[in-house]
């Protein structure tokens, strides 16, 4: 039905022409979901934009053909191309928070779209179809609820509305660009099931773009693996994921955290003969410095690096009236947790479960309404009453989720890294601070001259390394990592997780590792705690938890996490020893 042949997309720029996509071919049959998978910069979204004819300026299709049925899409004049959008090809976007017009009701958006393509249908019939479609995508009481505005729906519901909007014109082909990336696992699995059902029932063709191999394994029929704008490998999903031929596919598969088993380290496969990073001598200096501190401080008495007892955090709710305060929003309710010294505690939960609020309370960034927190057995003053000079402000450090916003864009890396040394009065000499900052960069696997550059000159994974280096320079004994890898590509995630594991083992750090992704947590954590709606659902040893979680909620969560288990039988996806080639960085 859809046939893309030899597609090449170029972006002419000041420094010559950038080829975002080169010689890509793919085909989609009715009732088939074709997955496009790859890491950032692979050209997935550019291919989607080329198919829908919405390439951002100054992009242009330089070569190739895109045919939908008998129509050559590239030959259509702009007006006809625009008319084909919605009518024949539609699209689903990643973030349901932003893909609906916030100022119009769901009904108005649906009816407008239907009438734009079938003006003869009439208002009443269009509304009936809108309601029927919403009901079909799983929105109960659709007749009444479609009078609501997008902000009155949850994320998953909004994505259902977006799917209804994409289908309301009865297109032949739908391009879905990361349709479930912004959703929680439970919702993700529902939305994927819905997509699969609609494709089967309506005989739609779908191009599904994702970075998540779990999603590919769960719903697609065929898959094309892309890298740097080129096709690496393509074929039926089972065959490609089960018996990957290309080295890149194998390395990608190896980097995916598995829910079923815990790896000591992710094997990092050398691709294109990239040289293994040689660990510079400077790293040893940083390591000695970190160790010296460890030895100097005699082992503290408490077995628990961090202990939280009955912690409660509540925020003011929206006001009910002029003199009535709203119901407080309870973000964290009676949570008790312990982080044993030198171990990793994985904290799991869906968005809104209160895990980040808990982290912020521990860091002293939000004011808890009740409960106690201890660090090394000593009471931690809560929130505002913890002075800036309190020793825990140094000893507990945080690595944030988004490395794009957690580093000050206007300061050089060297200055960012030297700050904790000066702030906590660890190193009075400016030159020594600079030396240490550079040594620490070497320790986290970055070149030393990175100190002279600015954050925007680094990739996401490199920035996260910088954030880790910054935390380490405070010589912490507890590290709080809030979703440290969820903004990163899988291969980069594998590297950062390996780095964290190395550092944790070598310096006996205690880490509170927060994530929504059970597969990632399994790789990292010795103990696991599950949160839901601000409450602790379950806590226990990691391996026992994955063998058989006690709480019903944990079981559901485990069952819904996309898994590659179905492919395990097919063949060894693990790379051969020769390829693994000791690329362990550091």
């Amino acid at each position, binding site marked *: 039905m859809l046939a893309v042949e030899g597609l090449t997309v170029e972006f002419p720029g000041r420094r010559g022409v950038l080829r975002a996509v080169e010689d890509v071919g793919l085909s989609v049959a009715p009732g088939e979901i074709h997955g496009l998978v790859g890491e950032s910069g692979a050209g997935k979204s550019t291919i989607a934009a080329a198919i829908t004819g919405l390439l951002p300026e100054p992009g242009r299709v330089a070569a190739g053909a895109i045919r939908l049925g008998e129509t050559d899409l590239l030959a259509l004049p702009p007006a006809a191309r625009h008319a084909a959008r919605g009518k024949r090809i539609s699209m689903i976007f990643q973030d349901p928070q932003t893909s609906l017009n916030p100022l119009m009701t769901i009904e108005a958006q649906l009816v407008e779209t239907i009438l734009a393509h079938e003006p003869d249908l009439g208002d009443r019939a269009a509304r009936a179809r809108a309601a029927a479609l919403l009901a079909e995508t799983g929105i109960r009481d659709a007749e*009444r609820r479609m009078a609501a505005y997008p902000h009155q729906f949850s994320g998953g519901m909004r994505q259902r509305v977006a799917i209804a909007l994409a289908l309301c014109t009865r297109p032949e082909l739908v391009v879905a660009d990361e349709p479930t990336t912004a959703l929680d696992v439970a919702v993700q699995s529902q939305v994927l099931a819905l997509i699969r059902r609609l494709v089967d029932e309506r005989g739609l063709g779908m191009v599904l773009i994702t970075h998540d191999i779990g999603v590919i394994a769960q719903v697609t029929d065929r898959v094309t693996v892309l890298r740097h704008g080129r096709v690496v490998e393509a074929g039926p999903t089972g065959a490609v994921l089960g018996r990957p031929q290309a080295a890149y596919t194998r390395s990608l598969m190896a980097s995916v955290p598995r829910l079923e088993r815990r790896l000591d380290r992710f094997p990092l496969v050398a691709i294109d003969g990239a040289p293994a990073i040689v660990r510079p001598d400077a790293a040893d200096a940083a390591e000695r410095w970190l160790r010296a501190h460890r030895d100097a401080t005699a082992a503290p008495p408490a077995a628990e690096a961090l202990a939280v007892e009955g912690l409660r955090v509540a925020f003011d709710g929206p006001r009910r009236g002029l003199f009535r305060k709203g119901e407080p929003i309870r973000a964290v309710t009676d949570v008790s947790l312990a982080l044993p010294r030198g171990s990793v505690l994985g904290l799991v939960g869906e968005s809104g479960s209160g895990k980040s609020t808990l982290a912020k309370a521990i860091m002293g960034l939000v004011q808890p309404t009740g409960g106690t927190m201890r660090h090394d057995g000593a009471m931690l003053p809560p929130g505002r009453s913890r002075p800036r000079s309190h020793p825990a402000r140094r000893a507990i450090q945080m690595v944030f989720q988004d490395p794009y916003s957690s580093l000050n864009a206007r300061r050089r890396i060297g200055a960012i890294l030297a700050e904790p040394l000066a702030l906590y009065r660890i190193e009075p000499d400016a030159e020594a601070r600079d030396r240490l900052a550079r040594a620490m960069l070497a320790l986290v696997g970055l070149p030393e001259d990175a100190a002279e550059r600015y954050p925007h000159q680094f990739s996401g994974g490199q920035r996260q390394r910088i954030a880790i280096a910054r935390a380490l320079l405070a010589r912490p004994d507890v590290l709080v990592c809030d979703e440290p890898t969820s903004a990163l590509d899988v291969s980069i995630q594998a590297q950062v997780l390996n780095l964290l594991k190395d550092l944790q083992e070598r310096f006996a750090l205690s880490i509170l590792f927060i994530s929504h992704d059970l597969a990632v947590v399994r790789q990292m954590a010795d103990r696991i705690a599950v949160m839901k709606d601000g409450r602790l659902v379950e806590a226990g040893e990691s391996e026992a938890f994955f063998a058989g979680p006690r709480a019903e909620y944990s079981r559901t969560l485990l069952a819904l996490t996309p898994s590659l288990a179905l492919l395990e039988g097919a063949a060894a996806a693990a790379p051969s020893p020769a390829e693994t080639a000791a690329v362990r960085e550091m």
Partner: protein
Amino acid sequence: MIPFVARRLVQSLFVMLAVAALAFALFRFVGDPVSQMTGVETAPEDMERLRVELGLTDPVPVQFARFVGDLVTLDFGYSYRTRQPVGAMIAERIPATLELGFVALLISLVVGVPGGVYAALKPRSPATQALLIGTLIGVSVPTFVIGILLIFLFGVQLGWLPTFGRGSTVEIGPWRTSLLTVDGWRALILPAITLGLYQLTLTLRLVRAEMMEVMRTDHIRFALARGLPLTSIHYRHALGNTLVPVVTIVALQFGGVIAFSIVTESVFQWPGLGLLFLESIRFVDIPVMAVYLVLIGFVFVAINLLVDLLYAAIDPRIRVTGAA
């Protein structure tokens, strides 16, 4: 919604009290009203009697309370200069300023909004470049220069339009309008353009910047991908989402237009509030100045309240009441 408005009203009350306090301070610090009212030959005893009669010997808080009470009951006192009631003087001048302000606002919106949309959608077209350069001139040349240039060109050289005054007016009850006669409109055009030009350029540039931002958002790309008609995408989906910041700036600017039409009114000898204020300053006519101050404060407070209500009308996320 109602508690929200109630809270804003209470806040507005405090703002008005603060403005009243400032206006009241004028009486105390800008010269001695009694020596303003009397001549050199007035006997000191008479001056003292006048002081007592006017209540100037009372404690300051009592005087302030009386001042606020008078304002609330719309008793604005008498002008030192003309000996007329200040309320009547202002009521006589208000229509001229309001009409000038509204027509200026209308011009700025009718040209600024579509101009901004066009500039955002066709960033490379020569017309856009011309618009942007034009608006740059609009913001950088002072109002009085523009006024004088317009008078020189259309009034003196071409002789098409009158250069001062309101032309012929019609009285509807207490309201003297120039909007109902051709002559009145002819007199209105030049001052309105002069006054509206700055706001026009601001509106145009703001709409352009916001539009370009909104056109990059996901929901507009989704609307494009659904093949909605382009006019609907541009004017219904995109323009709607630019309105909140645009309304804020335009409304606050409008307050400024009413308040500071002084320059334009003086260039065109437009018999409005601004001109009255200028004359009052010249003669240290404190009661008129004080009431003018309070009135302008009131205009700003009212516009702010209106803006808040407009937000709720534009954006459903602001009128939060229950989930669907």
